[in-house]
């Protein structure tokens, strides 16, 4: 009996954890949960590494999800370790003699059992302090807190607590301050246990928050976090697009292969082979304004473009402030992130003061127009703040004419376009589209759509 209740508690925990993973946006099918339960019976449960790998091998099929899984697993199953970290023992000096680790463990078990006995809906409806009150009521009803050796009573709206020490074989009444501390401790434990259920949601929310935040408002710490996210997200996007692209290729009869294969059947075309129609992967030319105002934004775009490099037949990238410089080679030789960093060391983008779109566009047409073919999609990133220079509109028209399509991604809010020194709409009319894109989600959506048109 004890074994089977223990079993169901374990099962419940596993289900809970699967929910956490699902909250973190990892897709898990019923089939996979089944094989997890099959697998659990085959392994020793006391080996953490084996336990973790069993979850990972049965549930996580996409390697880009592994970091997320690891985070969730650590948070969820190392709750106890974390629990002790979070309690400041000095703060609880008053309870020093009473709270041995054993007692804390006992208390934690009482709490766990209590939480398990509650209906799921309670967690959604009630606040943590409400749930704590429920626990106190329950303890009150049952007369004592069982094996903890600590009892908490509510008498006339006041809480009193006492603890029973075996050594002295007597009950000691706790002072008011001690009671308050005990309650504080219980509250903290409760918070940790309840929030454990939300690990997945929290991760997902954090991710959504970062992806939706204005890129130029990201703090340096957030940018670090973003890098990892871009890698993961870029990989996912790449996988998705490459899967989709292959579905549409189908072509005419491959005569050479058909004849060759059917020679063994006396030349009778017994088996037919079809040519796979070569889908022209798009060529991409990225022109990035890397001046201070949009620098961060361009970095992300370049990082994304090169993460997705294999999807394009060719990616050429150029950066400019008031000088147009090709930076493709840097990316050929180095890891994208390093390339972006070294870009500023090696190259001089400035000529005179501030951004000069017109000059750069002229330079592009003069020196690099070989980059443009009818298969090329051109992406320009920038705020079109030209510092009242000549817009170079003739050259810009040429870019538009020579390429398949021309997109301008503008990180500025739409109502700021054309305000002050921005000449967004001067360029905008010659673009296939000028879009306001200022967070990462929109950026990936844009790339995703780029492939749909092909």
């Amino acid at each position, binding site marked *: 009996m004890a074994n089977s209740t223990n079993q169901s508690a374990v099962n419940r925990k596993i289900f809970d954890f699967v929910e956490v993973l699902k909250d973190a946006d990892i897709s898990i099918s019923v089939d996979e949960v089944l*094989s997890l339960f099959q*697998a659990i019976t085959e392994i020793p449960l006391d080996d953490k590494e*084996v336990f973790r790998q069993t979850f990972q*091998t*049965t549930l996580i*099929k996409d390697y880009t999800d592994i970091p997320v899984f690891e985070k969730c697993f650590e948070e969820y199953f190392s709750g106890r370790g974390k629990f002790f970290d979070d309690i400041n023992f000095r703060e609880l000096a008053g309870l020093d003699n009473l709270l041995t680790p054993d007692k804390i463990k006992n208390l934690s078990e009482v709490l766990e059992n209590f939480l398990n006995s509650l209906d799921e809906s309670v967690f959604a409806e009630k606040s943590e302090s409400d749930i704590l009150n429920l626990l106190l009521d329950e303890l009150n009803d049952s007369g004592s807190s069982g094996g903890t050796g600590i009892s908490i009573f509510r008498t006339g709206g006041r809480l009193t607590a006492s603890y029973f020490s075996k050594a002295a074989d007597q009950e000691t009444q706790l002072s008011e301050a001690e009671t308050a501390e005990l309650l504080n401790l219980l509250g903290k434990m409760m918070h940790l246990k309840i929030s454990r259920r939300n690990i997945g949601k929290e991760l997902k929310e954090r991710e959504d928050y970062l992806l939706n935040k204005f890129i130029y408002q990201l703090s340096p710490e957030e940018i670090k976090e973003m890098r990892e996210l871009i890698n993961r997200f870029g990989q996912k996007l790449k996988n998705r697009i490459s899967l989709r692209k292959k579905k549409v290729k189908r072509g005419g009869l491959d005569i050479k292969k058909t004849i060759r294969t059917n020679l063994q*059947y006396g030349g009778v075309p017994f088996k037919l082979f079809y040519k796979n129609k070569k889908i022209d992967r798009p060529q991409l030319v990225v022109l990035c304004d890397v001046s201070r105002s949009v620098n961060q934004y361009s970095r992300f775009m370049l990082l994304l473009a090169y993460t997705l490099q294999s999807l394009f037949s060719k990616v050429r990238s150029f950066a400019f402030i008031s000088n147009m410089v090709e930076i493709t080679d840097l990316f050929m*030789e180095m890891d994208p992130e390093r390339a972006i960093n070294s870009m500023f060391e090696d190259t001089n983008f400035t000529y005179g003061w501030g951004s000069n779109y017109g000059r750069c566009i002229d330079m592009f047409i003069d020196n690099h127009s070989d980059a443009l073919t009818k298969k090329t999609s051109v992406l320009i990133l920038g705020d079109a703040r030209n510092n009242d220079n000549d817009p170079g509109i003739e050259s810009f028209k040429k870019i538009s004419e020579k390429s398949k399509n021309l997109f301008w991604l503008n990180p500025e809010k739409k109502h700021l376009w054309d305000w002050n020194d921005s000449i967004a709409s001067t360029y905008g009319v010659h673009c296939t589209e000028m879009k306001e894109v200022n967070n990462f989600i929109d950026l990936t959506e844009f790339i995703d759509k780029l492939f749909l048109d092909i």
Partner: protein
Amino acid sequence: MFSSIEETSKRLEKEKYITSRAIATTVYLALKLEKPVLVEGPAGVGKTELAKCIASALDIELIRMQCYEGLDEAKALYEWEYAKQLLYTQILKDKLSEITGAEETLAGAVKRLTETEDVFFSEKFLIPRPILKSITKKQKTVLLIDEIDKSDPEFEAFLLEVLSDFQVTIPEIGTFSAIKKPIVILTSNSAREMSDALKRRCLHLYIDYPTLELEQKIVSLKVPESSARLSSQVVETVQRIRTLKLKKEPSISETLDWAKALVMLGYEDLNEKTAIETLNFILKYQKDIELTIEHSREIFIN
């Protein structure tokens, strides 16, 4: 079969394959649950080797199928031996007309012919390809489907039946179910994503670069001629190099090459100078080499 995770790891070690706890767990579970394993990870970490070593540790046959673009069911599952079928119809012409001779109508002749079994579409005229072979073998086999990411997405569809039910359906004959369920290992370098349907049917194993201790064990096992001192220097250095942002990180096989080369060149000690001279054994891009030399102070601290 392996009886526990520890045994899995020990038996594989005997085949000179050092497993991490994670690898041993997945292999053990795959055998226990009789599920295929999809192995992913960077190139050169021993994905294919794992399948080979499982086969030799269990002392069973390894059937290997290398995937490539354009691989189709005729190369992977089965093929009808058309020439043989044609030849036999010629040889058996008389016999055939004997059977059908008495019938006057065409419909009658066809009926007669079909009554005597579908001779030409029987197992005798079937060429089994790797997958069908592993299913019909009387002994258990390891079926290695290597570099599945190189095949076309359509090809995955042929695999689904094998992966979930261990059977192959041939329209003309019927369904072949596995006599002994093979151990199926699929490897992928993640050149493209596998479909969800395929992934759902498999256990997943991601093999990353090994930890320091593991890699040292591997080197001392595979390059026994290298001294313990040199091995640990090589491994520590490679591990540090991997932390740089390189275009192509050195994998285990490169670590092994390097250790072997250093032994062969007669070095007993890896100092900065020898390391830089022989960097081209582990780094394949000039820029990577330059970057490493730039950071030589942190990298070559032996």
